[in-house]
C-alpha cells in the first residue's frame, strides 16, 4: 500500500533510498509517498506541482509494480489538487520505464530527458493549429510582468522584420501580475500590430517544468541554469510546428539568469535551425527599460516614472481598480 511519508524515520528512509539510487533528495515537494514491506521502505516518489521526482525502487524489488503504484498515487493526488498534466525528468536509461506507463518523451539532452504523462503537447499544438502561418515566422517568448515600452519595442522591431510573429506569453503563475492580466496587457499593447499572434506557453517554454531556475527569486542559481531542455524543446517541438525560423530576444543587462539564458539560446538554437537575434534594449533617460524596474517604481508608488516606461494601455490597467489591487498592497492612495 502506498502511504504518505511524514515521520522523521520515514524521511530518513526516503532520503537513504533516493540517494542509494543515485538521485538527490530535493525538497520542496507537495507529496512524498512510499511503499513499505516488513517496515522497510522499498519504493519512494515525490510530486512538486506538475513535476514528479525522486522516484526510486530498492534493488531487489525492481521489475514488479511498485513504481506503477507510486506513480499512480502521485498522479491521483495531484489530479485531486487540480493538476492535470505531469512531467518527469530522468536519465535517458530510465526513460523506457516511464514510457511503459504512458509517459511520452518530450525532449532529450543526452544526459537528461523530460517526459510528459499523456499527450498534452500534441493537444496544445492541435489547439493552436488554426493559428499556424506558412512562415518563415519569428517568435518572442516573454513574461511581460508588466508589459513595458521595452517589450513593445522588441515586438515591433521583430514584427517588422518577419512575415509573422508569434508572441508567447509565459503561462506560469509565479509573477507579480497573474497570467490573465499580463496576457491582456500584451494583447492591448500589441493590437496595432497586424502580423502578431499571441499564444500562451502552457508548460512548454519558460515554465517551472522546463526552466525552473528562471523563477528563483534571487537570480543566481550558481552557474547551472538548467535551460537546455527548455531551448531544445522550443527548437525541436514548438519551432517546427509554428514554422519559426528566428527567435528574438532583448539584450539583458541586469538579470544574470536571463543573460545566461540568452547565451544558451545563441549556443543551442542556431544548430537546430532557429536563428537568434538579440536586440538592444530601448532606453529612456539613459537606463534600459525593464519590467523589474517598473515593479520597483510601483513598489515606491512613483507613478509618473512608471508612466514613462510603459505604454498607455499598460498604464490604464495599472491605474484601474483591478491593476491597483495587484501592486498597491497598502490600499488605494
Amino acid at each position, binding site marked *: 500500500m502506498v502511504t504518505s511519508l511524514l515521520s522523521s524515520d520515514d524521511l530518513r528512509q526516503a532520503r537513504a533510498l533516493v540517494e542509494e539510487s543515485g538521485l538527490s533528495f530535493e525538497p520542496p515537494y507537495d507529496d512524498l509517498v512510499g511503499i513499505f514491506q516488513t517496515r522497510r521502505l522499498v519504493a519512494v516518489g515525490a510530486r512538486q506541482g506538475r513535476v514528479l521526482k525522486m522516484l526510486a525502487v530498492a534493488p531487489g524489488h525492481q521489475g514488479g509494480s511498485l513504481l506503477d503504484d507510486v*506513480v*499512480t498515487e502521485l*498522479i491521483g493526488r495531484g489530479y*485531486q489538487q487540480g493538476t*492535470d498534466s505531469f512531467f518527469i525528468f530522468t536519465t535517458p536509461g530510465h526513460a523506457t520505464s516511464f514510457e511503459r506507463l*504512458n509517459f511520452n518523451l518530450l525532449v532529450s539532452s543526452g544526459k537528461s530527458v523530460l517526459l510528459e504523462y499523456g499527450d498534452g503537447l500534441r493537444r496544445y499544438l492541435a489547439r493552436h493549429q488554426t493559428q499556424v502561418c506558412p512562415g518563415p515566422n519569428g517568435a518572442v517568448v516573454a513574461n511581460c510582468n508588466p508589459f513595458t515600452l521595452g517589450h513593445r519595442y522588441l515586438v515591433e522591431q521583430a514584427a517588422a522584420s518577419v512575415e509573422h510573429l508569434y508572441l508567447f506569453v509565459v503561462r506560469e503563475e509565479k509573477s507579480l501580475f497573474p497570467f490573465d492580466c499580463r496576457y491582456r496587457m500584451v494583447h492591448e499593447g500589441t493590437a496595432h500590430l497586424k502580423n502578431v499572434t499571441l499564444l500562451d506557453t502552457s508548460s512548454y517554454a519558460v515554465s517551472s517544468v522546463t526552466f525552473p531556475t528562471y523563477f528563483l527569486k534571487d537570480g543566481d542559481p550558481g552557474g547551472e541554469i538548467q535551460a537546455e531542455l527548455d531551448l531544445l524543446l522550443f527548437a525541436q517541438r514548438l519551432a517546427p510546428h509554428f514554422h519559426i525560423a528566428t527567435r528574438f530576444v532583448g539584450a539583458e543587462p541586469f538579470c544574470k539568469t536571463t543573460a545566461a539564458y540568452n547565451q544558451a539560446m545563441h549556443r543551442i538554437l542556431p544548430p537546430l535551425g532557429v536563428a537568434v537575434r538579440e536586440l538592444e534594449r530601448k532606453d529612456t533617460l539613459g537606463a534600459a527599460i525593464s519590467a523589474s524596474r517598473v515593479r520597483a517604481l510601483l513598489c515606491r508608488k512613483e507613478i509618473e516614472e512608471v508612466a514613462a516606461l510603459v505604454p498607455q494601455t499598460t498604464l490604464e490597467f495599472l491605474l484601474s481598480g483591478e491593476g491597483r489591487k495587484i501592486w498597491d498592497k497598502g490600499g488605494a492612495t
Partner: protein
Amino acid sequence: MKIMKKAQAGTMQSSDLMVFLEPADALTVTIESTVLKQFGGLIRDKVDQVLARHGVEAGEVRITDRGALDYAIEARLETALARATEG
C-alpha cells in the same frame, strides 16, 4: 448522465487503465495506450459503448491504458462516471 466535475479512476499497473473525466461542452475522447496500434480501435469502441449506455454526450474523456481487458475498461470508466456525477 452529465459529467459535472473532474474525476479519475484506475491505476497505472499493467493490465489496467487510468480514466480522467472533465466537464466540457462537447464530447472528446483521447486514448493513450501501450497497445494502441493493436487494440486502439477496440478500446475506443468499448469506451463509446459505455458512454452511450450512460447517455454521456459532453465532457473530456482521457484514457491512458496499459493493456486492460474490456471489462476492466468498462469498470474503470463506470467508476469514474459515478464519481464525476455524484452530488
